[in-house]
């Protein structure tokens, strides 16, 4: 997708990675046309694949979509045609086409991944992809080139140095890979050892992968490498700095570096002041450089949907109930403030029917009413009134607790375990009961008022139910909003839908062939999203056994998935250290957020849909403004991977839970207010992050050797957290 979108850039010497085009260092205007045949080729390859697999309908559909009238010619070597999948590298996002295929054309980066699965013989594929490296240069001169550039960059003015320093890492990697590809093993090693130390510390993980790779053969199956090759590393550099670099390289006739820059890097040039080191550092760190500005230009309807009008019977019952429970009477938030939000149409909200949503059932309405009632009793949180935290500790979880979820009304808790089980607990006195067997159900008087009670089998009442079905650790669990279903995703590549009435598995959604790291129900039910090791996030509907959308673009595992509160967008966090926001309607990636320095393990949308918080292995929480696609905050404090993030119901407090056994509370309101987002910063995306983590941190609560892996705010703003006690 790189090639398609970067057309308008300053870099007019934009070229396809074809060897024959690289013969000179000058800028060749052959870019635009060359991408067309590539696309065509990809499509043909896809069509062939489909045909081979007898997916006739899909073939037709794809042909229609792509506007290919003519029957494509059958390539003699079927495998070779499949190899064109590799060429998909240069292709744009094949939105729907992608959705039709499972993996082969799913994403440019996946070109090599399926190859081993198909059974070996994938040489053509890889050679297509790697051919860009076939160019020969004097291997011994690489060090000279690199250190020459290094010297130059170190000698330029301070303001440019930081910007140009960004070049080091991608150049280093590409030069190293070129050396490896051309079988200059020893040169590659010495090159690596010499300059490895210069790279930013947040690239260490990648460098480690790279260091293991010393042979051309290794490159075949290495996804990280293919990612690097197929996606252009994006740098954002000011025009001045770029001119400086260009002049230097041309003066020195340093074609080697110039070629790499042109072939493998995408330089996003902006006008204005060069950025400072801290600004650059805050945005960089992802596998493929920063996000291009164009990536984040699409308008995102981040507003909330209008809530359906439901008559809330305001009686005095709840007053009494409140007194009975002995809860301290808190000042109730004004009913209107709650209601008005949903009554008025938010200008940023998507159209109500942009995504078809399931109709409300009676039970849903009842639940909404309950929600409203509870909401009136909600405690208004703030820096002065911190939430109480109730910690649910899983004891004796030898098998390893891997995922936890609470229902929205906080009545049920589900845990996914490494022993493939899913366990559901009732955390209220109400026990879990199964529906009676069919024979028994037949004997029930269906007209009676308490039929819903009668169908339940009292004999099965228990506090905990175990769901068996997966054949691998369960990495994600999610309750449906109506509490009738539970989703679980597992290492075995399936997502299972469980009924919480019968406590049986209803559907196993197969599509991901690799571990599914996370899954989540849409806030309106019906849809759910999943993401896993295959780097593709899928959108499903519970009544379809195939995904409705596939979101391809991440360069590494998708580690967490989250629905936007308005259900129109899906956010995915990935091991490539980026967050992407996808439009459910058309499957487009509408935001790419870079800045994390480690795999992202958790995401949370603010209740108003405007902001996103993300936590990663680097122990930092980053805050994002979705509308502008900007990073607006950085919360430092945790010392280990953050596995849980949650905004309070009104969005005042952000709670984060981490492997370091702490729950931390942050002043979200202040974090969002402190950032001044004027037009300039919005346009350029150059934000000065205030370093105020310590001021925003409202509290740290240490547990006893219990990593916090889930957080949940009840409707009354009580914070629930969960984790397994770790006896070591």
């Amino acid at each position: 997708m790189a090639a398609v979108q970067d057309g308008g850039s300053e870099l007019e010497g934009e070229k396809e990675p074809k060897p024959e085009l690289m013969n000179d260092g000058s800028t060749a205007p052959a870019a635009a046309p060359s991408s067309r045949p590539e696309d065509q080729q990809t499509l043909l390859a896809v069509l062939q694949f489909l045909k081979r697999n007898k997916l006739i309908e899909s073939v037709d559909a794809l042909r229609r979509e792509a506007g290919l009238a003519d029957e494509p010619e059958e390539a003699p070597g079927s495998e070779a045609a499949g190899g064109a999948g590799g060429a998909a590298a240069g292709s744009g996002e094949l939105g729907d086409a992608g959705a039709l295929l499972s993996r082969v054309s799913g994403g440019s980066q996946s070109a090599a991944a399926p190859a081993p699965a198909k059974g070996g013989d994938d040489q053509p594929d890889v050679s297509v992809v790697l051919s860009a490296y076939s160019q020969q240069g004097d291997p011994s001169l690489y060090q000279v080139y690199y250190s020459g550039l290094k010297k130059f960059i170190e000698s330029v003015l301070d303001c440019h140095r930081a910007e140009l320093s960004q070049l080091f890492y991608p150049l280093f990697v590409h030069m190293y890979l070129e050396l490896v590809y051309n079988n200059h093993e020893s040169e590659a090693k010495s090159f690596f050892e010499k300059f490895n130390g210069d790279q930013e510390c947040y690239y260490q993980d990648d460098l480690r992968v790279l260091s293991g790779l010393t042979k051309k053969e290794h490159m075949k199956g290495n996804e990280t490498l293919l990612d690097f090759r197929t996606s252009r590393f994006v740098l954002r550099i000011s025009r001045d700095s770029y001119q400086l670099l260009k002049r230097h390289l041309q003066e020195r006739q340093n074609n080697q570096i110039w070629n790499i820059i042109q072939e493998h890097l995408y330089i996003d040039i902006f006008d204005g002041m060069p950025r400072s080191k801290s600004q650059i550092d805050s945005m960089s760190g992802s596998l493929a450089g920063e996000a291009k500005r164009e990536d984040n230009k699409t308008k995102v309807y981040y507003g909330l949907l209008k809530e359906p009008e439901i008559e809330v019977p305001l009686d005095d019952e709840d007053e009494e109930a409140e007194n009975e429970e002995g809860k301290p009477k808190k000042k109730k938030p004004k009913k209107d403030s709650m209601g008005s939000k949903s009554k008025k149409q938010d200008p940023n909200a998507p159209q109500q029917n942009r995504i078809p949503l399931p109709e409300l059932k009676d039970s849903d309405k009842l639940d909404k009413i309950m929600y409203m009632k509870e909401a009136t009793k909600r405690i208004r949180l703030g820096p002065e009134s911190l939430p109480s935290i109730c910690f649910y500790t899983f004891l004796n979880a030898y098998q390893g607790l891997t995922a936890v979820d609470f229902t929205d009304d906080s009545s049920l808790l589900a845990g996914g375990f490494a022993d493939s089980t899913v366990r559901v607990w009732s955390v209220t006195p109400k026990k879990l009961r199964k529906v009676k067997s069919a024979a028994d159900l037949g004997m029930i008087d269906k007209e009676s008022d308490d039929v819903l009670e009668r169908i339940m089998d009292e004999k099965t009442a228990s506090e905990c139910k175990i769901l068996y079905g997966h054949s691998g650790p369960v990495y994600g669990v999610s309750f449906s909003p109506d509490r009738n279903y539970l989703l679980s995703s597992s290492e075995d590549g399936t997502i299972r839908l469980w009924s919480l009435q019968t406590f049986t598995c209803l559907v196993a959604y197969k599509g991901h062939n690799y571990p599914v790291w996370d899954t989540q129900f849409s806030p309106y039910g019906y849809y759910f999203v999943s993401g896993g090791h295959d780097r593709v996030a899928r959108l499903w509907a519970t009544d379809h056994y195939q995904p409705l959308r596939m979101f391809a673009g991440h360069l590494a595992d998708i580690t967490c998935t989250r629905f936007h509160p308005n259900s129109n967008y899906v956010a995915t966090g990935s091991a490539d250290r980026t967050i992407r926001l996808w439009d459910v309607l058309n499957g487009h990636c509408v935001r790419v957020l870079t800045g994390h320095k480690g795999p992202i393990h958790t995401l949370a949308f603010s209740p108003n849909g405007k902001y996103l918080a993300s936590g990663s292995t680097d122990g930092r929480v980053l805050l994002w403004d979705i509308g502008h696609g900007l990073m607006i905050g950085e919360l430092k404090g945790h010392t280990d991977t953050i596995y849980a993030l949650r905004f309070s119901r009104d969005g005042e407090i952000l709670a984060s839970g981490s492997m370091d056994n702490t729950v931390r509370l942050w002043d979200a309101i202040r974090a969002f207010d402190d950032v001044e987002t004027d037009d300039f910063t919005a346009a350029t995306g150059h934000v000065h992050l205030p370093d105020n983590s310590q001021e925003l941190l409202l509290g740290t609560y240490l547990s006893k050797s219990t990593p916090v892996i889930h957080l949940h705010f009840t409707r009354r703003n009580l914070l629930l957290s969960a984790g397994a006690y770790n006896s070591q």
Partner: protein
Amino acid sequence: SKIKHREPISTAHLPPPGVLYLAVMAEERRQKQCSVVLPSESMKAMAESMGVGQLQEDSCVALSEEVSYRIKEIAQDALKFMHHGKRRKLTTSDIDYALKLKNVEPLYGFQSQDFIPFRFASGGGRELHFYEEKEVDLSDIISTPLPRVPLDVSLKAHWLSIDGVQPSIPENPPPATKEQQKAESTEPLKAVKPGQEEDGSIQGKGQSGTSAEVKGKEKLRMKPRSTHELSVEQQLYYKEITEACVGSCEAKRAEALQSIATDPGLYQMLPRFSTFISEGVRVNVVQNNLALLIYLMRMMKALMDNPTLYLEKYLHELLPAVVTCIVSKQLCLRPDVDNHWALRDFAARLMAQSCKTFSTTTNNIQSRITKTFTKSWLDDKTQWTTRYGCIVIKTLIIPRLTVEGVRIKAVMEGPVVSNIDKIGAITSPPPSLQKHCASVIAKIRPAPDVVDQYRTDYGYLGPMLCSHVVKARTQAALQAQTVNRTTLTITQVPTTLTITQVPSGGSRTPSIIKVPSSFTLMSTRPATPTQPSPPATKYIVMATSAGAASTQQVTRQTLTSFLNRNTAPAGTYTVTTKPHRPPGLAKHATVTASRLPFSSSAPSSVPSPVLLSSPVFQLHPPEPSSNPVFQSVLQPCPPVPSSSPRPQSPSFSPRPSVPVLQSPSFSPRPPVPVLQPRLQSPYSSLFSPRPSVPVLQFPSSSCISDVIDL
């Protein structure tokens, strides 16, 4: 091509468990390293294990590179599974899943939760690591009883925080670590640290509006920490504990004290406990309820022993209570029978402990307490009991002070000196005190035979001597020799004084010089005619011994390490011992004393080691319990080259014992200038504490442990 051909085999089968996990571990450990490759010998070994006999070297190298690369890849994938499993430890199953990801058959039957022990074997010039798989007899397994079924997963809820404050319940970690409490009490302005739970509590109670944050911080300073309400459980606990502590059942009390001393969650209850103790003392002192006072002091001791508590904030309540227990005029209904000295000693030790732990430059507890005691001590009208208490505490404090002085010499120089000054001030007692001393010492005139050793010892190690004093006392207390003894004791004082002067700076010497004389007085005093009961004397031993034991610390620190380097003290010791040879003679005592300085010059030139070692070991039999300690202290003393004495003789000469006899406030300035040249040793300042050593008495074994672990 040959290698190529083998490759599939290698990736599919070659990495046997051992190698794989080894490589993984190596990977983890040496992440930085660029390229770790398995040795080609491993390849050979593996090939052999699979029946491939002759593997060429080239193939081995190529294979090992390939295998290393694959293993690294797998390890990196396995890490992914570890992260998603929310664990910090890589398990075998992670590797299995990673293999599965690569379409490689997982290593079945290799489940282990624990670290896998590898065995090492070498032979035939080859080294191997392997995983030992024992042959298992199935019948054994069948016949063994089934292991207990592990408990099922269960869910437990607790409050991690209530309105922003973390309750101190067993489920939560101790709310505030000791360091934190300390930081809080010593630096109250910094108490509000973001990221600490206190922060939450303050802001939770603060006013609304963001500007209230400052307000909240101010509030903290005013808000007593004790306002936090105790949970019902805590209240119950408090009730149980306090009842047990002062109840009649000793077993229960022991349990309760144990609980207080170890429970990490008492932080919130600390104010209650301290109030309980101080109130309890107040009431029981009036009622002369000795037993309860002792119980309360034990409680306080337990609180101090609790590693998670930092008492400083409550010292204002606790210390007065302790002081009361030390110096109260009457602690029990029948002072002559009841063992109130024990309480005084115990409390004094407690005091010493708290002084040592909590005294800082800002609160100056130590000097304040010293001052308090000094005042009462100087007051002529105070009761003997009170005086006893004062002295006891002195003995405890002073060595401690010196310890402290040694430790933080540079920083604490000021306060230490001032304290010493004060102590010095005490020790210039009014003439009336002199009288008392005389009478006291009269009581403890030892039998001559013991005295001989006693003297030999005295200069070197006071504690030893004390035991003999006690013994002697029990043997015979003859009024007649009172005068004689008095002089004797006091003549010894100057000898110690010389030691004192040696290391300490000239300006300070006057004050320090007086210290030992006070000690002498203390040690002997309790046996005053007014309190002639045998227990009293016994307690003298205890009390002083505590001090002595702590001086052992000094000794251990300074003496053992430095004695061999600085000969001066050794020399002086010998000086002190020699002149006292003729002890029992009544009227001659003064003479001997006055003769002391002169005679001292002579023995000092004699190599001290002889004197040092031999008498010490002779002394052991009487008090065997303490032997180990002393031996450990003494034995390291090497034969000391006695280089010191030369300057000593002149220094001693102007200092006849007479001034001491008349009034201890004499100022023996003369020796100072002479002695100063001997300060060459860098450790001279370290030696200043040592003078007290000879004065302090023998430690009773019961106290040693207490004091040493201070």
